[in-house]
């Protein structure tokens, strides 16, 4: 068991190894953020607004820990898997993440980028939000221009995302996902009918609640998900992090 834990630990490290490097990066003071009289970022100041009065989610954020990234059901909710999904999940988990797309430099998808405890920058404009992920240097777009979710065309790892405001909460719906991505490192299955709903609520300057709901009758008997709180990272930058050619792949041990 001890060995199992340490192997799992080192496998997870492969995906989080950029963290120590952050310390070597430039700590340029983020301009325009609220500060206390001693100059420290005031993370409990009110959430900022855009000129059109909507909450402004822009900034660098991270999940506080990697437990949801490893297992989206880590919050304790039962994950109501259909038998085929339960069997696949068991196999992936026992195989210690071997076969995860990230071992081939394909990175992550909506849920596992959301729950990753490495930085991502949100850039919010009236018509589109871009999420820039430090890991793999990937990005994702969320359209806010009122367009409907399209009929699925080309299934993809990131899917197709549209967002709308419900009061101060940004509700993002994503479909068009492929069945190659995993919802988490343990391997909860994602299919081409998976519908992910993210509810972002910036509670104050430094904290954002994120509620994730997975709805996929092909894999799960009812909707399920996770609730976490993202932390704002002041005076930080994203560092370029490129996945090079399957170097990780040969280190994945499997069962």
């Amino acid at each position, binding site marked *: 068991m001890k060995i199992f834990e340490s192997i799992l630990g080192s496998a997870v490290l492969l995906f989080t190894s950029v963290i120590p490097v952050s310390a070597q990066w430039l700590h340029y003071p983020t301009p325009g953020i609220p500060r206390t009289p001693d100059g420290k970022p005031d993370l409990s100041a009110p959430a900022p607004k855009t000129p059109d009065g909507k909450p402004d989610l822009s900034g660098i954020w991270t999940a506080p820990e990697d437990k949801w990234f490893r297992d989206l059901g880590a919050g304790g909710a039962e994950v109501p898997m259909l038998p085929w999904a339960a069997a696949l999940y068991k196999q992936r988990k026992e195989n210690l993440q071997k076969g995860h797309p990230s071992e081939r430099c394909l990175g992550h998808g909506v849920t596992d980028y959301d729950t990753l405890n490495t930085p991502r920058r949100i850039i919010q404009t009236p018509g589109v939000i871009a999420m820039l992920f430090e890991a793999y240097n990937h990005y994702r777009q969320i359209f806010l221009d009122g367009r409907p979710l399209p009929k699925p065309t*080309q299934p993809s790892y990131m899917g197709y995302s549209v967002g709308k405001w419900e009061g101060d909460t940004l509700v993002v719906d994503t479909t068009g996902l492929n069945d190659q991505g995993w919802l988490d490192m343990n391997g909860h299955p994602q299919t081409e009918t998976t519908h992910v709903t993210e509810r972002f609520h910036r509670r104050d300057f430094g904290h954002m609640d994120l509620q994730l709901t997975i709805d996929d009758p092909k894999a799960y008997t009812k909707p399920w998900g996770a609730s976490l709180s993202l932390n704002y990272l002041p005076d930080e930058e994203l560092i370029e992090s490129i996945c090079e050619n399957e170097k990780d792949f040969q280190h994945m041990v499997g069962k």
Partner: protein
Amino acid sequence: MRNRNIWIVIALLAAPAFMRAQWLNHPTPGIPRTPDGKPNLSARTPRAADGKPDLSGLWQTEPAPPAMLESLIPGATNGSGDEPPSQYFINIFADFKPGEAPLKPATAALLRQLEQTYAKVSPLSHCLPEGMPLAEMAPAPYKIIQTPGMTVMLYERDTTFRQVYTDGRKLPDNPQPTWLGYSVGKWDGDSFVVDTLGFNDRSWLDARAHTHSDAMRMTERFHRLDFGHMEVLLTIDDPKTYTMPFTIKLRQRLLPDSDLLEDFCAENEKDLRHFEGK
């Protein structure tokens, strides 16, 4: 053989064009249109809230004119049917007469060596990043999102991005070398001037294997001429590799009613073992 190898490198980057037709053609909201509903690409340059030109939009570098393409790669105009790349993507020294490009002797020697095995040794064949300026000249779209304090470029190829700080900070003295470098931008009249340094020495400037060092500095001057057209004056200054700085002019056009596709090079990594090389 050399030409065939060049086309393989180019084809690696042109693949998403095949898929464009399958994408949803959602009308881009808020763009000027003629009375018949078509995008009016000669309308005026839009302005941001601060009065500066707004460069936001989906852009693509214009392909090489047919005669130029033919002179760079004889027979290429009867090629694969894909939209051809810019002449500078094929050869960043396309404006120079043969033999007059400002290569230092060691650079020329390295080039002769790399030329034997383009496709095998190209960073692109290994799904490594295009780097700069290749990403900006590639025959694939990129999106500019301009916000106060930061302008972002989202490149379709490999779903990768670049950040340009516009909050007034200076370039760092000794940044960690990266594929895309560290960029700061400022306005000079109606031109957005981006200065970049902190590159690693691993990417190529073009498909022809023109290399660069970690001393390279790049300056881009983006000038949006009207709604649908932009010129980018791009200057490379790398005294370790080239005897003088040189400048190319990229013409870019706005792609209306379209968007970026997801593209992960690693999905095509299987191709590598099929490439020939000496």
